[in-house]
């Protein structure tokens, strides 16, 4: 009996440990400033077992020329708005564009894995270091918010639901 209990407890421990590591992340974890970057959001699980039905990503300031890749079975929409400043894109002045991408209408079971891709241009105005793409994952039941941005001196590992990040380095 106690062995069974112990095994059960150990199992719960394993499950909870693996659940905690299965964040929504970016496939390519580093990129150069002033270059095109294909962001691929990796979704490895739903919300506590419930299938994912909607994914929303916020485009951080300084990331322009955003175009989501169409995805069969999902409706892709973008929310556009003004940037905080005007950026230079291959000589053209850009002051507004996509601020948020929404994938909806599909259903990704908890047991399956999928990727949600969009292309971006990382302006050289961005500071080197981590750049965060906050994601809200909505499921049939509940939601998960991958929006935690580590405070100075902390890393994503210190958080339970860190926002997906890409580390930027100067073009060289």
């Amino acid at each position, binding site marked *: 009996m106690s062995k069974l209990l112990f095994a059960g407890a150990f199992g719960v421990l394993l499950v909870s440990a693996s659940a905690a590591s299965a964040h929504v992340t970016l496939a390519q974890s580093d990129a150069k400033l002033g270059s095109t970057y294909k962001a691929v959001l990796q979704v490895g699980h739903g919300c506590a077992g419930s299938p994912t039905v909607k994914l929303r990503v*916020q485009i951080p300031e300084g990331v322009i020329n955003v175009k989501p890749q169409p995805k069969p079975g999902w409706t892709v929409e973008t929310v556009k708005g003004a940037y905080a400043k005007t950026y230079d894109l291959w000589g053209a002045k850009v002051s507004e564009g996509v601020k948020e991408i929404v994938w909806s209408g599909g259903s990704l079971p908890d047991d399956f894995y999928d990727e949600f891709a969009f292309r971006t241009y990382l302006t050289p105005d961005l500071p080197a270091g981590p750049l965060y793409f906050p994601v*809200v994952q909505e499921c049939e039941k509940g939601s998960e918010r991958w*929006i935690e941005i580590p405070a100075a001196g902390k890393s994503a590992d210190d958080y339970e639901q860190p926002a997906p990040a890409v580390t930027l380095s100067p073009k060289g």
Partner: protein
Amino acid sequence: MSLRGLFLCLALIILAALVAPRGASAHAALVASEPATGAVLDKAPSAATLSFSEPVAPLVFRLLGPDGKPADLAGVTAAGSRVTVPLPSDLARGTHVLSWRVVSEDGHPVGGTLVFSIGAASGGVNATSATDRDPVVAAGLWLAKLGLYAGLLLGIGGVFFRSFAVVGPLSPGGLRRALAALLVAGMVAAFVGLAAQGLDALGLPASRLASASVWQAGFSTSFGRTTILAVPACAVAMAALFARRRTFRRILAALAMLGPGLALAATGHAAAAEPQILMRPLVFLHVSAIAVWAGALLPLAVALGEGGGRAALARFSMAAPAVFALLFASGAAIAVVQLGAVDALWTTEYGRILAAKLAAVALVLAIAAHNRFALTAPVLRGDGRAARRLVGSIVAEIALVLLIFGLAALWRFTPPPRALDVALPAVEVHLHGEKAMAEVVVTPHRRRDATVEIEPLDADGVPFRPLEVTLALAPAGGGMEPIRVVATPGADGRWLATIPGLAVGGVWTIRLDLLVSDFDKAQLQGEIALPTP
């Protein structure tokens, strides 16, 4: 000046003396203390310092610990207006009451108490010392309440009824003597109560009655206020009893009638319950309704017994239903607050007393209904036999009323279920972040989950409404997962949460996640030191 006039003047002088603000005298007053009164300290202080408004000399210092055992404090030193009281090194956790007494430069002794807690507040001093209370003191407490109820409700109520409802010439004999006796009993009871409360507060036996600090302590309890209100009210009622002119009599009686409600709303468990703004008026209404109704019984019985009183009976039976309705509505509301749950009616001592009281009230109600529907009409028609039966019936009612008073007086010894679930002192913490801030108030309870109130503020300190508020608490030092709770928005912009398991005192880390917008979360972190229940 007639004897009656003299008495009236005396009564007014006593009233004026009692109502005059007590702090107006020029004796030394405590202006500050370390620890401050009500303070909850992490560590036992080695000494307490009291600062007075003028130089003082120390007299008596005693400390009452959470175990309810008082101890004399020696080695007290005074330097000018500053008194240093060394405290024992082995102070227990919980609430301590430092009773101080000094003599000021003008030769007047001044006393007071300083309440502080180490680690956490423990139950009231009365609650802990209740087990080894001197039986004489206990009897004094009970008798004082009973006497006070009789004097205030039957005495003043009787005077009120006599002044307003009894028309025609007043029989000066039996009734006046009976009412006067009740009023005197009420005044005596007020002073007996003061002494008993003082003895009880200091945990002293009845043999220490002569000690001035006992009376001082009695005055500092809520019963002190009751005495200040009850004694003049009885005196004014007495004046009304002996006043010759009807208008004057009625003015005095109406004035005295404020006394019972005010005096009893100033003390007791019910009046002390939250919300105060509701409970004190409820107690006032309840008590006033009892005084109007029960006060009528004695004058009615006497008047009917003497073969008159029919007009008074007609007035009484007209007003009684409304007064009863008020009495029951206010009583029911108080009971709901005090009991908290229905099963408290038989699982707690407080509830059992209430149940007994309700049974007696039901009996009174049955008698009253019988009087009203079976006897009143024949009596009003002039049926002599019915009148005699009504007198007997009213005497039975009075006996039951006294029984009810006796039961209600027992509540002095039983905390209401509400008080068993007392909250420990709330702990406040301000959490500060770049994007937002929050005021957090954690209230641990002795017998249920701690409650948390959160007021989210933006970076400028202006309250705002986040989409979601979640809370994570863990004992500091690591090794444990935090207790996570989602808060629910309250009505006033505060978010509320109950934290199960937050029973262990000590330092906890607290983290607050405020969802500012869909993609933006402010995380605030801090530490909070909780008292041990």
